[in-house]
């Protein structure tokens, strides 16, 4: 009978008291839930058509040797049928332990992990630091907040475009470094500095989101907890460690997860910063794009196989992350 809002009365499902028979329960369940299913139906349909179907097809593609030379295509008025063949799991085997698999997959894999870990750590630490500063009673903090949010407000493709000119050889950053008699690295050519630049730009882009989310989290912590801690003689570090961090945990767990997912799949920053000129600074996502669309002939099958591997890595990570959170009795609402 109560269809909506059973959450308001707690998480119990069904009536407390005696259990009705299976048929009645089925009927009951149908009556309770058909509204919910009707309401989520549009999204389920869209996900089925626009996500699941392409995903299944993409997965099938990874089991073939499809590339731009043997796929179905139309040249002028002639339509050429696809001629690619089913080859089983050869693509995965080739990517993971085939010859040169280190150069093609594992080196990018390691760099992607390093990239994700460094970026998310920097995002989180800098974001938390700034949030703590902005959470004090401080003159002009609204003003600071508005400025600090700027990198988030500008579309990524515009900011990366600007950064490219700042990092270029005659750009402002190297000019300043030269006036200070510091070495001026080749940001866009040398592998190490390419990676450094990519992390720098991505950090610049990602800090505002963390900062604002954590600021929201900080403001929701009850101030009486701080007063109590102070009365008990806790110093600033102890207050941070035992009041602030636990108070931020639910926000942190969400934003860190989102940060990892977004950074791992961060396409725009690296693609727009280097284009095709930096084979060693490519993370797996841009590398997969390169295989499928940035070279001739386009290797559709391997590109899709990379995609499936990436998705698998993220799903495995997220599952472990949730389990780890749950062990700490933290709730992540999924």
């Amino acid at each position: 009978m109560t269809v909506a809002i059973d959450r308001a009365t707690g998480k119990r499902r069904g009536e407390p008291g005696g259990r009705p028979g299976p048929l009645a329960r089925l009927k009951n369940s149908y009556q309770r839930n058909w509204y919910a299913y009707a309401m989520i139906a549009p999204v389920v349909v869209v996900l089925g058509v626009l996500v699941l179907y392409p995903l299944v097809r993409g997965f099938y593609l990874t089991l073939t040797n499809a590339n731009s030379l043997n796929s179905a295509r139309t040249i002028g008025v002639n339509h050429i049928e696809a001629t690619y063949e089913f080859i089983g799991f050869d693509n995965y085997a080739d990517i993971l332990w085939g010859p040169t698999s280190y150069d093609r997959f594992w080196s990018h894999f390691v760099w992607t992990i390093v990239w994700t870990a460094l970026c998310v750590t920097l995002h989180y630490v800098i974001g938390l630091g700034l949030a703590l500063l902005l959470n004090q009673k401080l003159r002009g903090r609204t003003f600071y907040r508005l400025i600090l949010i700027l990198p988030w407000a500008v579309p990524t493709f515009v900011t990366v475009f600007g950064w490219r000119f700042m990092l270029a050889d005659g750009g402002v950053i190297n000019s300043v470094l030269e006036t200070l008699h510091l070495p001026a690295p080749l940001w866009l050519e040398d592998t190490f500095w390419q990676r450094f630049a990519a992390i720098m730009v991505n950090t610049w882009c990602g800090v505002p989101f963390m900062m604002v989310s954590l600021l929201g989290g900080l403001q929701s912590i009850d101030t009486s907890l701080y007063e109590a801690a102070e009365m008990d003689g806790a110093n600033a570090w102890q207050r941070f460690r035992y009041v602030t961090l636990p108070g931020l945990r639910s926000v942190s767990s969400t934003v860190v997860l989102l940060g990892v997912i977004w950074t791992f799949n961060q396409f725009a920053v690296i693609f727009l910063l280097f284009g095709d000129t930096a084979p060693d600074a490519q993370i797996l996502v841009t590398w997969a794009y390169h295989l499928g669309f940035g070279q001739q002939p386009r290797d559709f099958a391997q590109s899709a196989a990379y995609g499936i591997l990436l998705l698998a890595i993220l799903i495995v990570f997220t599952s472990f992350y949730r389990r780890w959170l749950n062990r700490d009795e933290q709730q992540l609402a999924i």
Partner: protein
Amino acid sequence: MSTTTPTTPDRTTARADRTTTGTPAPRTSRGRAERSLAGSLVSHGILIVASLAALFPIAWLVFLSLGPDKDDYLHPGRILDKMTFDNYAFVLQHTSFLDWLKSTLIVSLGTTVIGVLIAATTGYAVSRMRFPGYRKFMWVLLVTQMFPVAVLMVPMYEILSELQLIDSYLGLVLVYCSTAVPYCAWLLKGYFDTIPFEIDEAGRVDGLSPFGTFARLILPLAKPGLAVAAFYSFITAFGEVAFASTFMLSDTKYTFAVGLQSFVSEHDAQQNLMFATAVLVAIPVAGFFYLVQKNLVAGLTAGGTKG
């Protein structure tokens, strides 16, 4: 925050005072004031440095866009003497900027409208109802955030070319909906969670069906949340690069994200014009962003943190 470890007498006075009068002892408050003077200097220092770091790249882009010659970015000092808005005038009058604006708006608005319309009821359902399969469904919504470009791009390309939708606005809108729809549902759940359940209960008592409750009571209350979801999907579609640069072939149909990249070859490496284009693209978006930014985060993190 810098601090000194409080000595025992300090602490006891503070505690005594607190229990008796409820206000901190004068000594403690002076201690706090001293701390916050040094502390606030440091805080201001760090915040100023951080603000400059946040502001500079954008300000620099705006500055460079005022230089009339294509090599001015190499000699920024020269720009000061001859700042002009000519670049902007040229971009607006003699380039494909307005074409790109049109296609960007068609694609982004299309995605937004479809995304929000479809996602609204779902956001409500997952906010209010616990149905069998609820957790799995939320999990699916999260997993769709994880899709790397490559996993859908190749099959999407195949499917769209079979449907003759490559290089069409509709094709790109459909592609973007695959991420925008679950995203909006997720965001809207967070917003609906903040609307008191008592309103639903009242509606139900008055004899409305869940659909009626949703349409007549909740939707009007959720306008700010809908606006945020709309803005977020708009921005996502607006800034997407990979699909847009692969699926749009004719240069009048480019979105800004692609158009800006293609500027070099088309306009003979006239960087000054590219700067102006970049600024023209960024300013309205940033303006809108500032209007809604507070709600953006609330919507997103609430969706993730509330059970």
